[in-house]
């Protein structure tokens, strides 16, 4: 915000400040506002002059970049938590944290596996938490549990072991969860952690088609807004951590092929920039969110995008 205000001071009149404040305070709106501000700051840091049109109400054009004698429109699309996934990172973190807290209070070290073939919704949260909390005894097979006409599988078993900062990622990966969390307690020497809780969502459905369709919809929405102007940038931000954007593709061919097809379909999209939130659960120091850009060969602003995959 400070970077944007410094470089686009004339756009920050009282009306704009009030509009941005309202959007940032609005739970359903603030992710989009933050994405637009971040995108503007990103291009300022890349050396562009930025026109932040999103500071004005009802302006269909969001950002125009002025760089190397070109005017480049940018349309920002913010993917809400859970977009194209079985469970949003936010909801999983809250659920897993609450399960871990219950286990800690009950002095249990547990491995919790929750299976689902459909979306896990907000209204399932307390149900799943209470099922895990009340689960006792040893079961060879997962238990089937029903809620609101839907079926989940649940397996809770004691767990012991240890990990280090270096090994935690591999340790968690060994459970093959779609999304998982491990909670550890540091041992006295400060290098190892004893496993306190491992919680994960198991999903055997192939949701690549859904995530790919969701991405395509966002590019199409940006393309609709870019129509009639010079080639621009579709800046798409995932609120959920997305460590590997290749996971967003529908088929086995690399994501760059799918992005190239979308840019062929909508020629007004000269580049697609994907970004995501960092994963704060795995906290290597100073890790920022991911950014990856795909640019059409013919556009002359590819250098402005930063890290990109040559196409």
């Amino acid at each position: 915000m400070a970077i944007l205000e410094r470089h686009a001071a004339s756009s920050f009149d009282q009306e704009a400040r009030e509009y941005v404040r309202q959007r940032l305070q609005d739970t359903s709106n603030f992710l989009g506002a933050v994405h637009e501000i971040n995108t503007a700051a990103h291009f300022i840091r890349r050396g562009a002059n930025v026109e932040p049109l999103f500071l004005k109400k009802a302006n269909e054009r969001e950002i125009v970049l002025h760089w190397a004698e070109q005017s480049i429109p940018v349309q920002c699309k913010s993917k809400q938590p859970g977009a194209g996934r079985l469970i949003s990172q936010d909801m999983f973190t809250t659920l897993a944290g609450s399960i871990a807290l219950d286990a800690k209070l009950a002095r249990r070290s547990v491995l919790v596996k929750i299976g689902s073939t459909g979306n896990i919704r907000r209204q399932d949260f307390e149900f799943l938490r209470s099922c895990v909390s009340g689960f006792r005894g040893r079961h060879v097979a997962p238990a089937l549990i029903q809620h609101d006409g839907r079926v989940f599988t649940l397996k809770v078993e004691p767990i012991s072991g240890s990990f280090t900062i270096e090994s935690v990622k591999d340790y968690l990966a060994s459970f093959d969860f779609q999304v998982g969390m491990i909670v550890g307690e540091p041992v006295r020497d400060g290098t190892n952690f004893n496993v306190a809780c491992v919680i994960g969502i198991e999903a055997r459905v192939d949701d690549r088609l859904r995530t790919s369709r969701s991405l395509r919809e966002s590019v199409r929405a940006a393309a609709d807004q870019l129509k009639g102007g010079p080639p621009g940038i579709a800046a798409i931000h995932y609120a959920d951590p997305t460590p590997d954007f290749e996971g967003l593709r529908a088929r086995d061919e690399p994501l760059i092929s799918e992005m190239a097809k979308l840019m062929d379909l909508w020629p007004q999209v000269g580049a697609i920039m994907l970004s995501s939130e960092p994963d704060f659960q795995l906290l290597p120091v100073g890790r920022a969110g991911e950014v990856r850009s795909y640019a059409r060969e013919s556009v002359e602003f590819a250098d402005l995008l930063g890290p990109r995959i040559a196409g």
Partner: protein
Amino acid sequence: MTMEGIVRKIAERYSRADARVNDLDLIHLRPYMEGFLDPQWVEAQLHDYDAWASKNSDDTLRRSILHRPLGLNTCGHDMGGAILGTGISTRPVFPYFGGRQKAIDHCLQYGDP
């Protein structure tokens, strides 16, 4: 130098592609962002979070996994983390959402990989 002047200098430094966040700048960015968002609104958000966390979380979970209620507007809380993570606040250090680390990651979210 006025607060506006200090924030302008900070913003200039962070406008470079290779900029990295200096923790101490958060002292000045706190009143700037509080003023932008509305200090009373931020305080109310943090108060609501305190109420939730006292019943549903603990310090370790808040610090390590950013444990928070569903559907929360994290805007005020990210700022709370930024403020409190510096350890300069009168509130206890790190009670909110990953504190300094989250604040730094968010400040330069698009840091070049």
